[in-house]
């Protein structure tokens, strides 16, 4: 039986992208609290600020560094992502980001790429250790949470916003509850509308955040921007974090293996071929 529920929505720019929050039977103040939560956490997880918790952890490489509960949870999720993706989703990617010239927010422009300095990434469990309240990054390694943080935040935002909510954090979505009409939250995926209910969605692409022949999606096997026959992958999975991991993994493994991988790990998926593939 369908029903109409009053839905409050809120849109704002944060994390260098756009965010949208939707929640049933919530006040404007609740939505603003969701925005503040994103901003507070974003300020702690960004690599673009030397004062952020993540940057301080990177700066303390080689020794244990005290971290808060949220960063600890994201780092543990990142270790899970590494396992889920057989090593293809690896947040120890910051040296490669620096090598491709992605040293600051793209709104300020890329810097000079020095691709010859890029190296294959070491396995994440070899360079990242996490224990209660502390983490250690190996010397010579550094972390960039990237889309992992967005997917994780989308899922957590749904918990913050209540039992019937939808969070869009820069394209990574988390949806809980029955939606405004009782049949899920209507979300556009590759031009189609899919009703999400207790699910998440994410898109990974090499079409955005690119300059010249360089883009930001790094293949950990080479340390260089990935080049497969896929340019963009959108995925619906059990949550935003899982969707982010599956979408990125599918793009990295390419068009031959991606359909089978998505069939095993996703609930819906869209594979966009590369323009030259």
């Amino acid at each position: 039986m369908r029903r109409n529920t009053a839905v409050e929505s809120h849109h704002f720019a944060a994390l260098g992208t756009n965010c949208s929050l939707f929640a049933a039977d919530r006040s404007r103040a609740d939505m603003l609290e969701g925005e503040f939560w994103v901003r507070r956490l974003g300020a702690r997880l960004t690599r673009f600020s030397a004062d952020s918790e993540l940057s301080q952890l990177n700066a303390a490489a080689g020794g244990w560094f005290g971290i808060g509960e949220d960063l600890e949870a994201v780092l543990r999720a990142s270790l899970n992502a590494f396992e889920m993706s057989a090593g293809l989703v690896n947040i120890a990617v910051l040296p490669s980001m620096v090598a491709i010239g992605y040293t600051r927010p793209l709104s300020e422009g890329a810097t000079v790429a020095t691709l010859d300095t890029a190296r294959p990434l070491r396995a994440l469990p070899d360079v990242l250790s996490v224990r209660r309240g502390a983490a250690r990054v190996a010397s010579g390694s550094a972390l960039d949470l990237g889309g992992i943080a967005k997917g994780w935040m989308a899922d957590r935002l749904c918990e913050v916003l209540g039992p019937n909510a939808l969070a869009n954090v820069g394209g990574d979505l988390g949806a809980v509850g029955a939606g405004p009409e009782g049949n899920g939250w209507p979300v556009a995926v590759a031009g189609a509308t899919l009703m999400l209910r207790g699910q998440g969605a994410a898109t990974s692409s090499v079409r955005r955040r690119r300059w010249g022949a360089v883009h930001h999606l790094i293949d950990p096997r080479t340390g260089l921007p990935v080049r497969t026959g896929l340019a963009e992958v959108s995925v619906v999975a059990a949550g935003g974090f899982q969707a982010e991991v599956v979408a990125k993994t599918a793009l990295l493994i390419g068009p031959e293996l991606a359909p089978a991988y998505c069939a095993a790990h996703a609930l819906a998926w869209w594979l966009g071929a590369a323009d030259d593939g």
Partner: protein
Amino acid sequence: MRAVLLKVGATVLTFATTAMAAVYVTSHLKNSAAPLRPTVLSATGGATFSAAGGSLTVGPSVQPSDVQPVTSTYAS
């Protein structure tokens, strides 16, 4: 005389137990036509169709719709 009574009693008890068991089993027959609970989703996979320059596959646990979406997933 006493031995005969014991034999008769044991025989009666055996037949009575068998009869009661038969009645119980008959009244608790398994309904082979009963549906599985929970129902098992179709293993035929999802529908695949062309969309936005690629192929979109939608599994059985995701419901497509023609209503206006409130937001979208995208690369950022």
